[in-house]
């Protein structure tokens, strides 16, 4: 069934979009990530303009995060105070990101920056995650070795120390705010929630209890993606509500099945699979940057006079 997307201005197969949403939703439920890193490149691949893909994806991620955070909220696995501090940085980062997006679009480098950010961030995080999880699988069921984590480093000497009772942490508020800031920039530029980056950062940099990490990062992502969606819709008119709705319907259903399937996966296996998938996306984008494009010329969408 073909359906015309009013903002993206192209006709797509509604079933294909529902299936894409469902498939990515399944994976996001399986691994507990937003799935934006898969969906945004897929949307661009089927012909959605990058700006619309990123804007719409931000809107869709709001729904996915709300759906995800509910389960964590019921189990009281959300540190609202820490999430709130991250959010301050996140809001600033999102604002900067949306502004940067517009600027880069004008300069003609947005596609390059999107691809480079994917390669850089996804490549690094997935390689680290893969080595860590493979080591855990090889070693059997031992937890990853993190003996050096609680040594006193310069990170603990930062000012503005704050108590986060829920996470049993006494750390500088600048740390979560900075992590949130980086996440916010990524939301705006890459059209992803940034969970895959926030989660390891919260575990390894903040030293947060693992149980609270997923819920707290999702809690924070709701607001940064919401802000990004708002700013993109108001500033650039790049949120396609019809596309977002199709993705949401597929996504929330897929995510529920994914969560159930995920219960059967062991933690390190799930992490290794996720890392492989993310790495594949990063490698694909890196290859596209390096090999000679089919046509070295490209054209912009017309600006009507």
């Amino acid at each position: 069934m073909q359906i015309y997307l009013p903002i993206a201005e192209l006709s797509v197969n509604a079933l294909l979009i529902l299936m894409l949403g469902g498939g990515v939703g399944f994976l996001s439920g399986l691994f507990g990530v937003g799935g934006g890193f898969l969906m945004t490149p897929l949307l661009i691949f089927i012909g959605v303009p990058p700006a619309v893909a990123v804007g719409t994806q931000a809107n869709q991620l709001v729904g996915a995060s709300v759906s995800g955070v509910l389960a964590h909220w019921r189990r009281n696995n959300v540190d609202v105070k820490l999430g709130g501090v991250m959010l301050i940085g996140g809001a600033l980062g999102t604002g900067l990101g949306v502004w940067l997006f517009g600027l880069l679009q004008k300069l003609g480098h947005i596609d390059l920056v999107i691809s480079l950010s994917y390669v850089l961030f996804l490549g690094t995080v997935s390689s680290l995650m893969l080595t860590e999880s493979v080591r855990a699988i090889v070693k059997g069921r031992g937890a990853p070795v993190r003996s050096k984590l609680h040594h006193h480093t310069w990170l603990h000497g930062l000012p503005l120390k704050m108590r986060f009772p829920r996470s049993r942490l006494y750390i500088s508020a600048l740390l979560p705010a900075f992590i949130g800031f980086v996440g916010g920039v990524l939301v705006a530029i890459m059209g992803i929630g940034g969970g895959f980056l926030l989660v390891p950062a919260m575990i390894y940099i903040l030293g947060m209890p693992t149980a609270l990490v997923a819920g707290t990062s999702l809690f924070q992502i709701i607001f940064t993606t919401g802000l990004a969606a708002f700013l993109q819709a108001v500033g650039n008119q790049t949120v396609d509500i019809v596309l977002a709705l199709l993705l949401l319907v597929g996504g929330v259903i897929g995510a529920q099945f994914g969560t159930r399937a995920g219960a059967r996966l062991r933690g390190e296996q799930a992490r290794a699979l996720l890392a492989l998938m993310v790495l594949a996306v990063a490698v694909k984008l890196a290859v596209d940057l390096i090999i000679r494009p089919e046509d070295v010329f490209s054209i912009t969408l017309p600006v009507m006079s």
Partner: protein
Amino acid sequence: MTRRSRRLLALPMALLAGFCLWQASRPAWAQSLVADLSSHLIAITTGFTGTDVVLFGAVDGDGDVAVVVQGPEGEVTVRRKGRVAGIWMNVEDVTFSRVPAYYTVAVTAPLEGGVPPAVLQRHEIGLDYVRLLPEKAKLPPEKQAEFRAALIRNKQRAGLYTTEVGEVSFLGQRLFRTRIFFPANVATGTYTASVFLIRDGDVVSAQTTPLLVSKIGFSANVFEFAQRNSVFYAILGIMLAVTSGWLAGIVFRKS
């Protein structure tokens, strides 16, 4: 020809027949070319996947017919990628002003050879003769030609610039018709369909008909709303997302 397109053609053919009768009942006048479209409005609705418009008409004698349809003009930037530190990135760009978003030409027979380029140039008949001028005047001619060719190539790949030699068919001596395809990614705005009668290497008669491409119904409302009340649109979008996420969380908890 598929059954669907045959059905699609039934109406224009009936119109064509009526048009001929009407023509015959009138006193002969000096006009050597008359043409019209099966529809002057292309409505982009939610189910829009592209559409055909039939252009039909009559001529008073021999000659070739060329049909040029072009769409709303806008500014387009053509960018060239180059290798910088092993990575392909945009290194050069040329902006063309007043580029038609859509251009198609259909002719009865290849015009090259029989018609002087100056004539084709004047009427913009053929992709080689479309007026595409860069904003900066001081561009070396080779560079301009290179970027111009790239612009046309990219437009062709998107299905928005087409040439169809031999696609204007004559029914008997006087009547002609052609089908013009508008793909799903066609831009909204005002288009013109120009018909030229070419005899002895010159355009002896021409007629231009307007054509409107417009979003209609739901997709038009959404687009309008997103443009005019972007703040409400943004809030609505977010509320939609929150509600569906919330609903999914509740529905799937019970089951």
